[in-house]
């Protein structure tokens, strides 16, 4: 039985785990860098260990320091939160080898999903559709032409060695394909020292829809529906909601079952998220996150299931008490990510919080480690709070989200609250007719105002 959990993280997620521990009667142990000595997750834990100087590489990413902290604090399990070491297979392995429970999946599954190409292969073989493309690099023009015909235009020419959006060219017809290939090759050679390119179907206006998975090590694996995280910019999500405004009950059950079946066959344990693009009624797997997701409270709101408690329980070897048939979806939930950043330039704005007043009232949940006097250090992620609202319908939920955002006071540093408010006023958001490129477009227009 897990009795004491060392939380290898900071900020709101560390606090989230402290809360789950408290309710389960488990002792939480916090770790912190010198920059976080006064942080809320440190104050609310039973014990705390300073593990290093401010840079994350020397503290929250320092595996040895975290293991030593677990040793001196007498913890029997380690919760990695999200980010930092949460998807580091070597760390998970190290934790297990030293006799601690790792509150996450088995290292082999973290490793598999960490390799984006192997992950796609695995999911395809398990029956989850992936974005159609060529299996290997394009050797010559004839091969490219044939592949593009098979996949269907428009196609995306991508560098094998590329990543993060670099080394990609869109081709809408054969001429663009041939020209684009030459260009993409040259860019790839210059950028990555490797001129190999491959083709993938280009989705014009996709949505980002992800399925929440929960599995124990006894072969039970269920899905908790989807989250729509389409409002994002440069792969950074801003607003998430459940259920997705574009899926009906039948589609939800079908994609949920398909993902749960695949993950069950993988022998996965823990919480996990299957991230997909969605366009014209079809889903395409992009990646799986083998950890607790930032936006998990949205799912908690509509299902009433505490994902962190479940995660701890299955990591402890317990059987899932919930069956698929027990999962009920109720109402609608929206999460707004509050970041310490300038609402227009989106540059980080670390500093000290002078006044803090979180919103309240019916259907409002705020996950945040902020308080008046709290310091937001410049060393870490700019996410400072998650505002999650729940109501019986999407329309009511939206009204509640607007109301709650208007109540939120964070003085002393600049936040993106004005941007969140502006987004929720947009017609496209109200109708749900948006795609992954929508926020970038809106931002450009919004930034130009005044």
């Amino acid at each position: 039985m897990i009795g004491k959990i060392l939380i290898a993280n900071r900020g709101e997620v560390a606090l989230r785990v402290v809360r789950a521990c408290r309710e389960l009667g488990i002792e939480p142990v916090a770790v912190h860098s010198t920059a976080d000595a006064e942080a809320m997750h440190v104050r609310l834990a039973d014990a705390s260990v300073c593990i290093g100087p401010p840079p994350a590489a020397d503290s929250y990413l320092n595996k040895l320091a975290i293991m030593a902290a677990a040793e001196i604090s007498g913890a029997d399990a380690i919760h990695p939160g999200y980010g930092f070491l949460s998807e580091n297979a070597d760390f998970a392995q190290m934790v297990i080898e030293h006799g601690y429970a790792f509150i996450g999946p088995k290292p082999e599954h973290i490793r598999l999903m960490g390799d984006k190409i192997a992950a796609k292969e695995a999911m395809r073989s398990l029956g989850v559709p992936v974005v159609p493309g060529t299996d290997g690099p394009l050797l010559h023009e004839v091969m490219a032409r044939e592949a593009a015909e098979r996949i269907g235009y428009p196609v995306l020419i991508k560098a094998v060695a590329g990543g993060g959006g670099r080394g990609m060219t869109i081709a809408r017809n054969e001429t663009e394909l041939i020209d684009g290939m030459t260009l993409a090759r040259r860019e790839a050679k210059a950028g990555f020292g490797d001129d190999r390119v491959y083709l993938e179907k280009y989705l014009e206006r996709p949505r980002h829809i992800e399925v929440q998975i929960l599995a124990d090590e006894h072969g039970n694996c269920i899905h908790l529906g989807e989250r729509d995280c389409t409002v994002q910019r440069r792969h950074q999500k801003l607003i998430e909601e459940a259920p997705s405004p574009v899926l009906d009950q039948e589609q939800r059950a079908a994609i949920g079952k398909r993902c749960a079946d695949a993950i069950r066959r993988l022998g996965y344990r823990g919480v996990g998220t299957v991230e997909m693009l969605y366009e014209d009624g079809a889903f395409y797997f992009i990646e799986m996150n083998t950890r607790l997701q930032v936006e998990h409270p949205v799912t908690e709101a509509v299902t009433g299931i505490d994902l962190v408690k479940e995660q701890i329980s299955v990591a402890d070897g317990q059987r899932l008490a919930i069956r698929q048939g027990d999962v009920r979806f109720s109402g609608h939930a929206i999460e707004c990510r509050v970041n310490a950043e300038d609402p227009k330039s989106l540059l980080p704005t670390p500093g000290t919080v002078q006044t803090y007043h979180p919103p309240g009232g019916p259907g409002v949940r705020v996950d945040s480690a902020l308080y008046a006097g709290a310091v937001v250090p410049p060393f870490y992620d700019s996410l400072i709070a998650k505002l999650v609202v729940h109501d019986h319908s999407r329309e009511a939920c939206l009204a509640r989200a607007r109301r709650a955002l208007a109540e939120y006071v964070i003085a002393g540093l600049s936040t993106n609250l004005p941007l969140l408010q502006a987004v929720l006023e947009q017609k496209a958001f109200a109708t749900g007719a948006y795609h992954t490129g929508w926020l970038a477009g809106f931002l450009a227009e919004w930034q130009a105002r005044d």
Partner: protein
Amino acid sequence: MAKLNVDTSLIETLAELLQRTGLTEIEISEGDARIRVAREQHVLQAPQASRPAAAPAATAAPDTAAREAVESHPGAVRAPMVGTVYLTPEPGAAPFVSLGDELREGQTLLIIEAMKVMNPIRAPRSGRLVQLLVNSGDPVEYGELLMIIE
């Protein structure tokens, strides 16, 4: 904040450790909970209250001035890593250094064990050891005060 569960087996272990190492006292803390096992009242220069507590707000006011003086001392030697302190090369052996010793820069002061690896901590400067703020077996955090060399 920690509740004080009196762990008698822990106290026994500490008492045995005290005998074996020849130390006069051992104190461990977790949050606000502290266990201190002492053999005799001994003249130890370092007031234990001067140790930086894990919970900064928990220290009593009268100690603040003394603590600050120690904290800001230019000869302070701090833990460069998390781990467990050992003042002797092995159980029962003589300690690496003792109060009042004249130390050379680079000399081993103590060991911090982290993940079964013994990391020797060396003197950052030459001088006299005027305060020893940790005991063998103490868990230390990153940046915790270990000793003061003048």
